[in-house]
């Protein structure tokens, strides 16, 4: 599995990027947190007029003004309204106007591929969210590049005869490491893994939210392998078809399939003989099959491996692998 040391190093690289978007006083508090806690941080939660919190793998903690643990709300550092506003300005590089689409979707991806979720007052235009104003809540999710997190997954999805991978769906509830595992799997597929008899494949990656490759100005900043072409910020459905036509990939990868148009595009890719690997939100096969778009995907019955991730000990743990037949014994009803 993953050694602890590698884990810490991977995160050390992340902190400067994350700290750069925090107002100075919050930066000071967070740098005051003990390193053994800092390396377990998954989220930083900044809510106006409420305590500053860190989300750890084991739950959340409140911080005191000096960066220590606050055991009660009275000792906790309370985030001011002005700090939330300032944080948002730093996150956007004082360019809210350049992030209208992202704000409409409720999150911004910052340098390093970290996702920042936003809440506030929604402004509507003809019943649709036009933008958000009066921002009050910010959640910075620290994206981890954990080299080796897909090691336990790889032997289950490699198609040794074909010298490629099986069509694979990775699914789990949120915060189980889907994106982390997918990123590492893409890296291994792209670089090739002789130990599984897998030569390097040209991978086409549609990274709609810049979370997988962590692109900054179009260039991947995370290790996603030497044969990976990334369409950054592109809608999945369109992107998959574009890659199929333009880059001649052997494998197409994408994150969070769920809408009907995504599934239709996926079908086109499947019919083109290109292998796919993608993630889906959901905690059980039963739940997935209940969603119309995904039910259609089950009906196609073209996906060979359904991988369930869990977070019993550590995010990214493979809890179960199902194939075309066993899904029907495990809750999929068409």
């Amino acid at each position, binding site marked *: 599995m993953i050694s602890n040391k590698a884990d810490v190093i991977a995160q050390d690289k992340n902190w400067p990027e994350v700290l750069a978007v*925090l107002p100075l006083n919050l*930066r000071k508090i967070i740098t005051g947190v003990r390193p053994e806690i800092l390396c377990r941080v998954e989220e930083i939660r900044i809510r106006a007029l409420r305590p500053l919190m860190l989300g750890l793998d084991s739950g959340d903690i409140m911080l005191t003004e000096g960066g220590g643990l606050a055991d009660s709300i009275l000792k906790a550092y309370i985030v001011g309204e002005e700090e939330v506003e*300032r944080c948002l*300005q730093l996150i*956007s*590089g*004082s360019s*809210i*106007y350049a992030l209208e689409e992202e*704000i409409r979707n409720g999150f911004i991806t910052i340098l390093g591929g970290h996702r920042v979720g936003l809440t506030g007052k929604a402004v509507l235009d003809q019943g649709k969210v036009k933008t958000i104003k009066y921002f009050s809540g910010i959640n910075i999710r620290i994206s981890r590049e954990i080299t080796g997190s897909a090691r336990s997954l790889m032997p289950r999805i490699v198609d040794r005869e074909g010298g490629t991978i099986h069509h694979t769906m990775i699914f789990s509830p949120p915060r189980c490491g889907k994106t982390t595992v997918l990123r590492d799997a893409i890296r291994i597929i792209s670089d090739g893994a002789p130990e599984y008899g897998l030569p390097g494949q040209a991978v086409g990656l549609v990274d709609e939210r810049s979370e997988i490759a962590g692109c900054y100005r179009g260039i991947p900043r995370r290790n996603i392998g030497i044969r990976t072409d990334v369409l950054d910020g592109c809608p999945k459905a369109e992107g998959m078809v574009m890659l199929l036509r333009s880059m001649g990939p052997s494998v197409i990868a994408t994150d969070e399939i769920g809408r009907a148009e995504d599934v239709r595009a996926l079908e086109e890719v499947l019919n083109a003989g290109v292998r796919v690997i993608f993630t889906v939100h959901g905690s059980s096969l039963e739940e997935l099959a209940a969603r119309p778009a995904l039910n259609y995907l089950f009906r196609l019955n073209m996906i060979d491996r359904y991988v369930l991730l869990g977070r019993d000990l550590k995010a990214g743990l493979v809890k179960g692998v199902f194939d075309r037949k066993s899904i029907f014994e495990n809750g999929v009803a068409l």
Partner: protein
Amino acid sequence: MLVTAGGVAGMMVAREYAKRPGELKSLLSAIQMLETEIMYTATPMAEAMERVSTGADQRVAGFFRDAALDLRSTAGRTAGEAWETAMERFYPRCSLSRGDMSILGNLGRALGRSDREDQAKHLRLASEQIRMEIIKSEEEAAKNTKMWNYLGFCGALAAVIILY
């Protein structure tokens, strides 16, 4: 000699008055460039300011360069603050009035904090105000230039007459 000195002094004061409309015009065109960057290409603020500084008239380019550099530093500064600091450095070096600076200041406080539509309103308001100031400053300049040119010369002449 006194007359020449007085005349030259008067002309120098007059030249100061003539500078302001020119600076206001280059500021106006720089703000319009910034508006284009924000509205049509949605360029991030730091980059937008940099681009303006390379394209703008050299009289105001330094101001935008300062603001961009400040914003790029990871010292946790917002565009409004970077703008404000750049203004403080710019003011002693320029011929703009306090009123002109307050137009700039108001724009700075709104910069980068809202969506495109709202940014456009602030940028257009500032442009409009600067346009008004240009007209006013040109009238003033025409009046004052003439006045100071004469005043320097005549004042010196008067001094000569009184002295002798």
